[in-house]
């Protein structure tokens, strides 16, 4: 522990953050990802203090603008911003002028006009944060858009993996569930492949992407499969996704029972992964569906840790983005 600070300064501080927005992980370089992880380590230390608060972002206003419900992402961002001394304004689609039909562009411009520096945005439409970013000088952080991207989740997942595995290079990560509709799977694939991990996307054929497999030149390899029992063999990380019950109503899975039989992470399956493999889930969990309760709360579960790490990683991103925009 005491050796790390000196060693890290030798190489880690070369990259600087220049981005106004964080919309997805697909364009982040390896160096930028490393900078986020390194900064998050510092933030995690701040979070571990008796008084877990600094005043670095005093005078910065962060707005959370959520067009879709969320517990952990919104709360996590609010705690992160407040831990850095920023002021936070929370807006949801219900109870704001959005209900009166105010457009997204008008809403973000209004937020900018009242002095908001950073807008954390969640929207049910894929791509909405990109539209917002083009129409405001405020920074936009994508807190999840439709079925497209969830970059802060991917970075906190990566942070959790790296803190256990040291590095993800050459490791194998299996993501299982509704890949087709999962912004978490997509954003995770980009960061993991970029850092040299091999990614297996696994689920029933109806819930797998048919035409799109992420590819990162010089990075890890991405494979897509329906055979979970084979995919989990020797995996270093197993990430289960939330199975939305409405998928069954839409006929994408024959029945929940069949999904569980083929794709639930349970003790029997987890045993076939690498010894000490990390079990992850972006939450909220359907216990008994994508995860059996014993593994969800078992020794290999990193699920609560993911939530705690989320605050540190979001602090890092708010810091990098807000400190840059003040210059």
């Amino acid at each position, binding site marked *: 522990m005491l050796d790390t600070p000196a060693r890290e300064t030798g190489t880690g501080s070369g990259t600087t953050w220049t981005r106004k927005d964080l919309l997805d992980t697909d364009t982040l370089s390896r160096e930028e990802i490393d900078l986020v992880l390194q900064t998050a380590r510092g933030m995690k230390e701040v979070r571990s203090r008796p008084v877990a608060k600094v005043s670095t972002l005093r005078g910065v206003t962060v707005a959370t603008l959520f067009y879709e419900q969320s517990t952990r992402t919104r709360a996590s961002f609010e705690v992160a911003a407040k831990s850095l001394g920023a002021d936070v304004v929370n807006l949801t689609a219900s109870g704001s002028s959005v209900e009166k039909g105010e457009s997204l562009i008008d809403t973000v411009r209004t937020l900018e006009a009242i002095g908001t520096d950073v807008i954390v945005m969640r929207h049910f439409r894929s791509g909405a944060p990109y539209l917002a970013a083009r129409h405001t000088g405020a920074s936009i952080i994508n807190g999840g858009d439709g079925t497209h991207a969830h970059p802060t989740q991917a970075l906190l997942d990566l942070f959790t993996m790296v803190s256990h595995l040291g590095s993800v290079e050459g490791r194998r990560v299996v993501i299982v569930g509704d890949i087709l509709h999962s912004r978490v799977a997509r954003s995770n694939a980009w960061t993991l492949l970029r850092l040299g991990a091999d990614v297996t996307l696994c689920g029933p054929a109806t819930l797998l992407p048919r035409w799109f497999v992420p590819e990162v030149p010089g990075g890890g390899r991405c494979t897509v499969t329906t055979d979970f029992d084979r995919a989990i063999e020797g995996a270093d990380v197993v990430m289960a996704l939330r199975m939305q019950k409405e998928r069954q109503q839409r006929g994408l899975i024959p029945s929940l029972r069949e999904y569980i039989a083929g794709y639930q992470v349970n003790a029997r399956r987890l045993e076939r992964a690498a010894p000490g493999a990390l079990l992850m889930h972006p939450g909220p969990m359907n216990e008994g569906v994508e995860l059996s309760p014993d593994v969800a709360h078992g020794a290999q579960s990193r699920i609560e840790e993911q939530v705690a790490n989320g605050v540190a990683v979001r602090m*890092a991103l708010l810091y990098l983005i807000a400190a840059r925009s003040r210059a």
Partner: protein
Amino acid sequence: MSGVRYLGPEEIARTIRRLGHEIIESNRGTDGLVLVGLLSRGYPLARRLAAAIREFEGVEVPVGALDIGLYRDDVAQRGTPPPVRPSDIPVSIDGKTVVLVDDVLFTGRSARAALDALLDFGRPARVRLCVLVDRGHRELPIRPDFVGKNIPTALVQRVRVRLSETDGEDAVYVYGGEEGDA
């Protein structure tokens, strides 16, 4: 732009031994003493001071690492966010004598930031400042308690401390401007 070397490995080693003696003399021993080095180069200096004190006194003085990235006042001027690394203060500093250790004292702004950072970890009885090099040009009312070497410099010059732990050699260089008159 060529640098002038002001200190080499032997001089740095001797200076650290002297600073170690001065610290324990001023503290009347090692009781309640905690050395806290600023990241990145103050920290290896603090460890070397602790090693010197161990040699003289046979006592292991606790050493901490302090990152001041979140406490700097020049974020807007820099244009890029300063790096942030974990601090590591291994013992409670309440009621202790904390010696902050850094490589170069210049404007005093790092020392100011370090005081803010340190006080977030507790309430020391007293805080002292130890630097390997004091190059002058203070912008804040801050003065060091223990100084390895005073190197008068022009404002345009740069002072670079290189340590084997972080840079692969022990040396102090001054770059640029007219040559300083040490």
